[in-house]
């Protein structure tokens, strides 16, 4: 039986009827076409599906949509302030070469946003720990770590 719910995503309210077994990942991608959030494994191991729920990073593939009713959900689509301005994290990812195939990128950025909300000047080691729930097969992580470190500095300055 479908449950009527309201989801607050990137500040917008969506009214939906959702089957209990559908995950937040499925609802974001299939019902709302917010496809910036990816699905890489379905087991919470790769991090490609990471979104923020009430400010905390979670795996959307292991979150039932019904469980996040009434919470603030933020996806990669909600990071940039406007169509022609990027979030400092996104900017740093672009500039530092942190993006190759891009499939892990949105999840990495969301975890970076969570990390920097908890710790505004993380050490390199803390950044690496902050990415412990992510896999990337292209970059070897080095330029991603670099980008997050750069974003942290920029965000502190502004």
């Amino acid at each position: 039986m479908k449950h009527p719910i309201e989801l607050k995503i990137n500040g917008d309210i969506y009214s939906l009827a959702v089957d209990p077994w559908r995950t937040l990942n499925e609802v974001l991608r299939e019902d709302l076409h917010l496809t910036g959030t990816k699905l890489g494994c379905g087991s919470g191991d790769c991090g490609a599906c990471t979104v923020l729920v009430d400010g905390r990073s979670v795996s959307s593939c292991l979150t039932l949509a019904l469980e996040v009713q009434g919470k603030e959900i933020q996806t990669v689509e909600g990071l940039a302030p406007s169509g022609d301005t990027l979030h400092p994290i996104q900017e740093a990812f672009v500039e530092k070469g942190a993006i190759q195939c891009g499939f892990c990128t949105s999840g990495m950025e969301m975890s970076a946003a969570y990390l920097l909300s908890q710790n505004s000047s993380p050490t390199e080691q803390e950044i690496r720990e902050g990415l412990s729930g992510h896999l990337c097969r292209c970059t070897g992580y080095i330029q991603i770590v670099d980008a997050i470190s750069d974003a942290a500095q920029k965000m502190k300055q502004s």
Partner: protein
Amino acid sequence: MEQFSIVGKDVPRNDAVAKARGAAVYTDDMTLPGMLFGKILRSPVPHARIINIDTSKAKALPGVKSVITGKDIPKVKYGNWRLFADTQDEYALAMDKVRFIGDEVAAVAAVDKETAQEAVELIDVEYEELEGLYDVDATTKEGAPAIHDYCPGNVSVNRKIEYGDVEKGFGESDYIREDTFEVHAVSHAYLEPCSALAQLDLDGRITLWTSTQVPYIVQCLLASTLGMRENDVRVVKPFVGGGFGGKMELRTWEFCAAFMSKQTGRPVKFTLSREEEFLTGRRRHPMTLHSKVGFKKDGTLVAKDLRIVLDGGAYNAMGPTATFLCGNFGAMLYRYPNYRFHGQHAYTNKPPASAMRGFGAPQSLYASEIQMNMAAEALGIDPVEMRLKNAQVSGDKIPDVATISSCGFKESIEAVARMSDWKRRRKELKPGQGIGIGCYSFISGGVFNWFNTQYPFSAAEVRAFSDGTVHLLSMASDIGQGCDTAMKQMLAEELGLQMKDIRITTADTATTPQADLGAWGSRVTLMVGNAVLDAARKIKEQLFGALSARLNANVVYEMECKNGMVQPKGRPKKAIPFGDVVAMVQKSKRGEPLIAHGYYTPRDKGLVTPAFGFGAQIALVEVDRETGKVEVEQMWTAHDCGTVINPKGVEGQLAGSIQMGLGYALSEQFVMQDGKTLNTNFLDYKMPTAMDMPPSAVEHIDTYEPEGPLGAKECGEGLASPTAPAISDAVYHATGYRCKDLPITPEKILNSMEEGA
């Protein structure tokens, strides 16, 4: 070094903003009106005859629109080696037999994922199980049952190379050693699971959006398996989340999506789960390598005899190429005056191995490099010195195979030894630490036309506009490696434009020029780059003609495109904006648009490749002598990729290679039991994370490849090879454990240390 204005600069990727915003659309992100969801039924048994398939219950399930089995589809085999039809051994769905756990048996398309899943579970298949054969010894022994009827003995490919006189060489050697190495299968583990979406156009054409490295190959093979003409099939590559060789063939879900869209008149999408990827996905070839090498007392190489048996799994896939290449790589890096190779590709009842980053080199060079270190130790020569003594140099010929043009190998070895302070460190490490070296060479694309294409290997179209912009079209496939950006950089350089002046459309077989063989073998930069430059130069010819006419000068100047202008060389006062000159050309031709086509197919480049990349890598490790765990503390790399088009891109390729090499050496493997892959998730398939990555220093050796576009050659794939031997050698240095059967596990290290103690 040549002076460039855009080439060699850290230009951000042209797709970076779209990817950073989550706006880049990958195949599974797409939804079309009326779209159906596909699901594949896979064999649960490793080897069996199919007695009967009952799809009636699945077909009766409400919401199910199509259920197909081998009986419903054209009986056409496919495989990438079209030149040799007998290597094509795969059907989209099993016809009479299944040959590995995960072999595709049937497919369902339904109105939603849940229904498709349910329907697949309702299909009853009756199997008559056959003996499963899981290793090459079992399949190649006398009297072993044939996995494919056409291939008794189960060896599907034989490849031999021989030059010099190997036996005479061994006779003249002072020191001979013979070793056997076992290297294992690993997964591409691209983050984007495979996905394909097909739609029937109203006039009968099929469009397939698919996560592929080879749109042209998929187009051709899909057409033949569907019984259609090539031009009736359009293949589009959307953004692709990594490939590494794992997405370079026509695959069942691509066929099924297309076939079922034709059958139902509705779009059909298939997306694999990670579990399916691990359970059934392609993988790097496991190999058994017997290598005998002979040296003079002073360390000079005299002869090598290399025999390799490849465990190909259930189908050939790209196995023939791997068999071909591992023999070629066995003759690379060092001067082997006498060389003999025999490679055999054998079937087993396991998921097929295929192309994977390095394509035969990581396996072959693991054996070469470890053996080099063992010989160096036995002869009392420093491994770095031993390499310098034997290193290939520019101009070296490998009979019947290739002539090495640009080569910065010696410089790479010297640089990496200097960067790592090799001489001191090799002697002065604390207990538990070790330092080791590994080297590589790799191809910049292949010369051998196994796909039997009638088209050029690469093509590009450049359209120039009077507003000062150009549009670049090419079938090249950016799968994350960044070739779209590199091509734009080369075009901008050649035409004196900025990145923002270039629009690009790629990898759509209906709109981009025929053809391109795809993204594999590190071929795109060199081959498509040359095609782009060819087109750009044709544009320039016309621009220069028009400018000459306009200037009406009594001296004929050399012309150039620079800073958005066209001008006589070094005479900016006479410059006219690029767009204005384009308009001049058009006006001289009744408005005809200014368009040029460029092509590249290697000529007279031997059997393998037009150009080789080279490099050397040193690893510093620390081993916990109680647990056997290896911590890689630092990597140093020096490599020769010719002109560096985009330094950040090249460094990203390098770091990614180290991640993959680290996994290959230390943590990644398929745990198999009776043909079944047991570790089918990222929890148990252990890919290195950000916390496992060592710091890394890199130096680019400055060379210029004459056959390469603006001097460039391969950079992303060769580096998949040196990391495992470098780490392995460092572990030996630290513990005395010499790994001849990858991966290096803590347990193997501990056992070896116990035996040694």
